[in-house]
């Protein structure tokens, strides 16, 4: 049984090529993935991300529960609307999912998790909630639209009410606010300015159409992938999964080690891994000659082999880039080799981030 988002008919009307994405029929592109990618880097594009799972965690123990559940510390969130990116681990220290948590109050949080991991995430959260006074409520009655690009905010502003515009005026990155019908957040998955907007199903189509009329270009999952990869953002299932430590997935920055007595799930395993210092790490790879780096290609280094976790052609840079998990001794600036189509090709090691706000950053 294939799920369809509330915007399904709009995609077909725009000539989308639809694909199955973990049980959801989603647009891969509306003609040219590269043109959609460039629209986001240069102007404004939008993505239907209604397949993503919104979960509200509420109750007197909501804060205590989340301090146990995820590796970052929600106690750091004190301003209403502030968001946090983090990971949820199993007991063995593997990543069950990555997610964003919005703080409204110490008894009221909103989580946005991946759609591909929806069932296991909900099952895990429910299991871990034993003994905590909380409710876990999925919110399927909403659609979600990510509007991204240097002109995104200005174009969205033309559709908002005076009250909504006042509320988002000067809002810093990684905040969200509910005003009227819309939950508007300064988050994204492209490395550009913009919003992710949670919208009730009943008005989603109308809002999407108004964005089209305002000159925002519909973009599919293909462009979403090349944009997030240029921005060096992980994709769950490729760059990390339940067998991978956050330390090996460029997610160490999302671990809050202090205070030491916060007993989050997986803490003992991560502490041991940190002490050993032998976990591999996620780096960027750049190939300036012809060819495209792809997932699962072998990376040959003097310290042993690694693997490309995701690779693509970068439309912004005009050559291929990749994220790769390699031995920890490999350094930024090193030259390593990738086995591509039976040949070894030299590539440069960079930090795992390639493009931000339209500009090369390595």
């Amino acid at each position: 049984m294939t799920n369809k988002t509330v915007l399904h008919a709009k995609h077909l009307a725009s000539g989308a090529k639809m694909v199955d994405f973990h049980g959801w029929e989603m647009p891969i592109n509306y003609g040219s993935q590269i043109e959609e990618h460039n629209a986001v880097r240069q102007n404004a594009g939008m993505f239907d991300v209604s397949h993503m799972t919104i979960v509200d965690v509420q109750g007197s123990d909501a804060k205590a529960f989340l301090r146990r559940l995820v590796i970052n510390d929600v106690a750091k969130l004190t301003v209403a609307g502030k968001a946090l990116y983090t990971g949820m681990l199993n007991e063995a220290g593997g990543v069950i999912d990555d997610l964003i948590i919005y703080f409204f109050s110490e008894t009221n949080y909103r989580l946005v998790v991946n759609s591909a991991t929806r069932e296991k995430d909900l099952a895990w959260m429910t299991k871990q909630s034993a003994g905590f006074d909380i409710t876990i409520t999925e919110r399927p009655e909403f659609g979600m639209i990510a509007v991204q690009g240097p002109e995104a905010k200005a174009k969205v502003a033309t559709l908002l009410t005076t009250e909504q515009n006042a509320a988002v005026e000067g809002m810093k990155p990684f905040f969200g606010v509910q005003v009227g019908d819309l939950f508007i957040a300064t988050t994204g998955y492209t490395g550009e300015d913009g919003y992710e907007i949670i919208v009730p199903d009943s008005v989603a189509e109308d809002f999407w159409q108004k964005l089209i009329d305002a000159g925002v270009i519909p973009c599919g999952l293909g462009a979403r992938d090349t944009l997030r990869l240029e921005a060096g953002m992980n994709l769950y299932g490729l760059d990390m999964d339940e067998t991978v430590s956050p330390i090996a997935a460029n997610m160490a920055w999302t671990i809050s080690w202090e205070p030491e007595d916060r007993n989050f799930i997986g803490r003992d395993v991560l502490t041991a891994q940190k002490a050993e210092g032998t976990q591999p790490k996620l780096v960027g790879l750049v190939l300036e000659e012809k060819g495209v780096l792809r997932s699962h290609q072998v990376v040959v280094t003097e310290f042993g082999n690694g693997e490309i976790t995701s690779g693509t052609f970068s439309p912004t840079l005009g050559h291929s880039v990749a994220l790769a998990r390699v031995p920890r001794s490999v350094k930024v600036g090193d030259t390593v080799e990738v086995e591509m189509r039976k040949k070894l090709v030299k590539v440069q090691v960079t930090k795992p981030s390639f493009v931000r706000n339209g500009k090369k950053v390595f």
Partner: protein
Amino acid sequence: MSNIPSELKYATSHEWVRNEGDGTVTVGITEHAQDLLGDMVFVELPDVGDEVSTGDDICVAESVKAASDIYAPVSGEIVEVNEDLEDSPELVNSDAFGDGWLFKIKMEDAGELDNLLDAEGYKNSIDED
């Protein structure tokens, strides 16, 4: 359904072949194939002068999505390659049967053309995919 010109011959591996009537054929990939692959980013062409045999993988079309081998539909010598693809690989997407052609082969045996599919045969082959 994509366009499948009736004057061309086809391989099940999605190459089209146009008989130029002078012992050479022009080869490209079909509109259906470029649609499956998505935006083309590099095309690695064979070298002029290469001797190729039917079924050899002689060219790589690399799109945002995947790298795809392209096979020689007939045996012979590569006599010309489409150098415009060096700077404009997207021609394969925008004009698969025209400006997006890949290479020309001087055939060893024109009789090999009879082994290829006609438009209807190719249409049936992709309907089965």
